[in-house]
């Protein structure tokens, strides 16, 4: 199949547009999608946009596409990777993240969980009796925000794509748990102790991100986490949405757009206080991360040393 814009071989056919795109025109198409999403929310000239890179295809695509925009918009791009210490899986992810940084020409800060916490994510989860994925989410959210704060970043970008957000919204609707309204926003405003978020891929399908990463090509790891729950609702939701998309091209994008236009459901935003241990924002007295770490590592654990170690890890991004 030939590219609809030139005579080169196409790498993807976008059904709802009825257009085939070669790697270069796919990049152009995705840069424009990302530009529309991030417009007005980028750091000022010289400011730092920190991208959380896991080593996977989506955050690799997000970093590369933002790099394409960084020249004209004048912001600095930095990457941060959290090594979760999940054996060979994490080693492959870390390697891919470092290679990605080299490939797109951006500095990267590595935060090694055993190095900064004294325990990997599996050990933390076991000690507190939580599923690994749940502990992992708490650890990553906390450390990425801390890294962005210590690096002086204006925004923290993540690789959540259209399929992630649609599946999350569907799961939240099915289970009636969680606040999907905030996940649907392209950006989240920052405040003291919290760096605002940016979701540059929120209109990019997971398949588009994969084809982009493969055809650019970008270094990424495509291995499955050994703790991934193949029977989880989120995976089923993604498959279901994909099968609907197969018969109704463009369905996922319009689902998200319509949902984002609806007013948020539920009560008022929780009032945010400060964690008594680390001082960062928390809606429940002591924050979820400090509660978990105290249970996992005992009274001896205190967040000051962690903050110092993270500051050291991200110093090169300043």
């Amino acid at each position: 199949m030939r590219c609809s814009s030139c005579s080169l071989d196409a790498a993807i056919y976008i059904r709802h547009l009825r257009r085939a795109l070669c790697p270069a025109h796919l990049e152009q198409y995705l840069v424009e999608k990302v530009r529309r999403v991030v417009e007005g929310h980028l750091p000022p000239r010289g400011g730092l946009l920190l991208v959380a890179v896991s080593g996977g295809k989506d955050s690799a695509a997000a970093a590369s596409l933002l790099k394409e925009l960084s020249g004209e918009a004048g912001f600095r791009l930095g990457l941060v990777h959290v090594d979760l210490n999940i054996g060979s899986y994490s080693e492959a992810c870390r390697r891919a993240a470092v290679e990605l940084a080299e490939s797109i020409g951006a500095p990267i800060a590595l935060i090694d969980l055993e190095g900064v916490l004294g325990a990997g994510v599996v050990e933390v989860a076991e000690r507190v009796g939580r599923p690994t994925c749940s502990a992992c989410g708490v650890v990553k959210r906390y450390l990425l925000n801390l890294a962005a704060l210590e690096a002086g970043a204006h925004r923290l970008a993540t690789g959540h794509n259209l399929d992630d957000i649609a599946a999350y919204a569907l799961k939240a609707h099915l289970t009636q748990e969680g606040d999907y309204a905030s996940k649907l926003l392209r950006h989240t405003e920052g405040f003291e102790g919290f760096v605002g978020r940016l979701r540059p891929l929120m209109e990019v399908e997971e398949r588009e991100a994969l084809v982009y990463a493969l055809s650019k090509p970008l270094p990424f790891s495509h291995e499955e986490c050994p703790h991934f729950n193949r029977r989880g609702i989120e995976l089923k939701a993604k498959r279901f949405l994909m099968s609907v998309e197969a018969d109704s091209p463009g369905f996922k994008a319009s689902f998200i757009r319509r949902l984002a236009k609806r007013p948020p459901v539920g009560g008022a935003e929780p009032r945010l206080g400060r964690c008594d241990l680390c001082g960062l924002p928390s809606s429940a007295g002591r924050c979820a991360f400090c509660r978990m770490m105290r249970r996992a590592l005992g009274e001896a654990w205190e967040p000051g040393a962690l903050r110092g170690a993270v500051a050291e890890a991200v110093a090169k991004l300043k």
Partner: protein
Amino acid sequence: MARASKVRVAVEVRPGGLRSEVEVRGARVADLLRAMGYERGEAVVVRRGKVLTEVDGLAEGDELVVYEVISGGAS
């Protein structure tokens, strides 16, 4: 040149790295993915480092890597 209506190809599936040989009737990428049980859009096929579209043809003895779109790992 008329395309063969049936070809045998070698595939490696990622994630996992499982290798197998698949006989494909129809000899297009979409036929291979259907034969492997994927729904449209669930997987992407690469031949010699080049991403193929679903209507691209396959040849006897092709060595292919099939990337599942939903990986369940780092994203």
